[in-house]
């Protein structure tokens, strides 16, 4: 059974999330490139994984026993880099090199350049299959580590996601947890306002259950719910676990939230400063 996070841990995680979001918008502004909406919707889950759930050691990022993480929606790389920097994998200042020549911080995660990245991604739909391979590799070699993976809802349109879903349940990969960052937007999608805009994927719960997965649905911006789901996942046997994380694209900055155009827009200096203000207010609330 999982015990709720105590007040201290909870505010610690909330503060890290806010810092991560700050770093995301600052870095994208500085680089003049990158994505915003997807990294911001993913921030709380990424923080919870690296500061609460996963067994990792930034001092020894290649430790064979470490838990693995694959960012299948690789365009959200800057979200992961922000969290890795905060966690001590590399100096925060290095974020300033994001997307520039010879940087370890590539537009999409490159496992050969940056220690701490467990898989290279960027072409959507592939990361989850590699995560299935890692979880299967652990089982075949009687290794204890767990594998975590995050996919996008737009990404879930790729057939490969469902090929992976099928194999993971066939091999009963209960050491695999996939988180769906269900922010209800993709890059362009089916245009239309309000309810007439089709979500990237319908009925994810029924779909994943039909593929033989154990499904948990949460508010992906609530650290209590994220922690509870992740510890619950440890108790599931014989099935891989899907956490449907209900999120808001661009979370934390009102003028970015829920607007598909912020998928990869670059904030101006003014937008950066009003966004920073909002993020600070958010923590004090």
């Amino acid at each position, binding site marked *: 059974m999982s015990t709720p996070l105590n007040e201290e841990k909870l505010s610690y995680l909330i503060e890290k999330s806010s810092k991560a979001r700050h770093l995301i918008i600052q870095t994208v502004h500085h680089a003049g490139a990158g994505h915003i909406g997807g990294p911001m919707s993913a921030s709380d889950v990424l923080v919870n994984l690296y500061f609460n759930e996963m067994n990792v050691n930034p001092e020894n990022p290649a430790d064979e026993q470490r838990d693995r993480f694959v960012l299948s929606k690789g365009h959200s790389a800057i979200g992961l880099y922000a969290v890795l920097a905060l966690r001590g994998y590399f100096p925060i200042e290095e974020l300033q090199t994001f997307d520039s020549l010879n940087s370890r911080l590539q*537009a999409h995660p490159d496992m050969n350049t940056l220690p701490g990245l467990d898989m290279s991604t*960027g072409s959507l739909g592939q990361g989850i299959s590699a995560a299935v391979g890692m979880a299967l590799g652990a089982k075949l070699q009687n290794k204890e580590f767990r594998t975590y993976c995050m996919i996008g809802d737009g990404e879930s349109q790729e057939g490969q996601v469902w090929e992976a879903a099928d194999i993971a349940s066939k091999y009963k990969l209960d050491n695999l947890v996939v988180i769906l960052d269900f922010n209800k937007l*993709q890059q362009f999608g089916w245009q239309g306002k309000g309810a007439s805009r089709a979500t990237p994927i319908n009925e994810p719960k029924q779909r994943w259950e039909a593929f033989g997965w154990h499904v948990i649905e949460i508010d992906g911006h609530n650290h209590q719910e994220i922690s509870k789901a992740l510890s619950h996942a440890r108790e599931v046997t014989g099935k891989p676990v899907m956490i449907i994380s209900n999120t808001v694209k661009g979370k934390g900055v009102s003028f970015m939230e829920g607007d598909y155009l912020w998928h990869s827009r670059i904030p101006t200096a003014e937008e950066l400063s009003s966004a920073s203000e909002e993020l600070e207010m958010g923590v004090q609330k």
Partner: protein
Amino acid sequence: MKSLLSKDQVSMRDVFGETLLKLSLESDKVYAIDGDLANSTKIDAVAKGNPSRFLQMGIAEQNMMSVAAGLAATGLQPWAATFAAFLSKRAIDQIQVQIAQPKLDVKMIGAYSGLLTGVTGKTHQSLEDIAIFRSLANMVVLAPADSTEVGRMMEFAHKYEGPVYMRLARDPYPIIFNEDYHFEFGKAVHLKEGTDITIISTGTQTSRSLAAAEQLEADGISVAVIHMPTIKPLDKEAIVKAAENTGVIVTAEEHSIYGGLGSAVAEVLVEEKPVPMLRVGVKDLNSESAKNDDLLEKYEISSGHIVKRVKEALTKKNSSI
């Protein structure tokens, strides 16, 4: 020498979107097919201007290309656009079996081709698409040099019945062709005469080759520049003639040195008229995310690198006499 490069720069993708909208308004059979990149490829012009002709297929390129094949089999003419990297690598089996082999009337737009893809790095760059598409039987492969040529090529492709691959660039390029330009399918375009050496280029490298030629002329070297908008079928005659006229060739493309225009030209020369030649292209390397100028320099395809290769090639010409 008067510059052949206009100061005006226009994006190929903007003209692509406008032209496809126009075609969709003129022809009953034209449909725009998107893989969730409409606001990048600019096929969103059809979504806005003629929404009933816009079909969103989601982020599922393999399915998208097979659906396009099915649409074509019912008599429609689908124009499917996504990043060249995903079109040429993610969906290539579908394209081979259901579009190229049956010779269906599907137009494939490889947006964001080459190295300069808006700082998105090696997963999104496309340095292999010419090699891949060129190797498929029945496939036409086109690479425009500027936005004017994009429009003309699309009018050709619309009339041509069969699979056509067109590689486009993301960022604006100088205008080379004026409004009177006529695209001739399968024919080389002689942009500049010269007697010492010929540069044969395609796509975005044509404007860099013209810039290189201006610099070389200033150094007293007389350079011919031939633009190859049709990479397949290739204008062999023009290549042989160039070899006869100048005795040495340099090729230039924003693509890998393997399998692209350089390889295609070398194949012709070796069989028909062996002369020294050098290629300008990305070596056997993975690239990265960085600013355009940094990438052009590091991966050795800037106009400065074309100048360098031309001078190197000239030493081969002289020593082979």
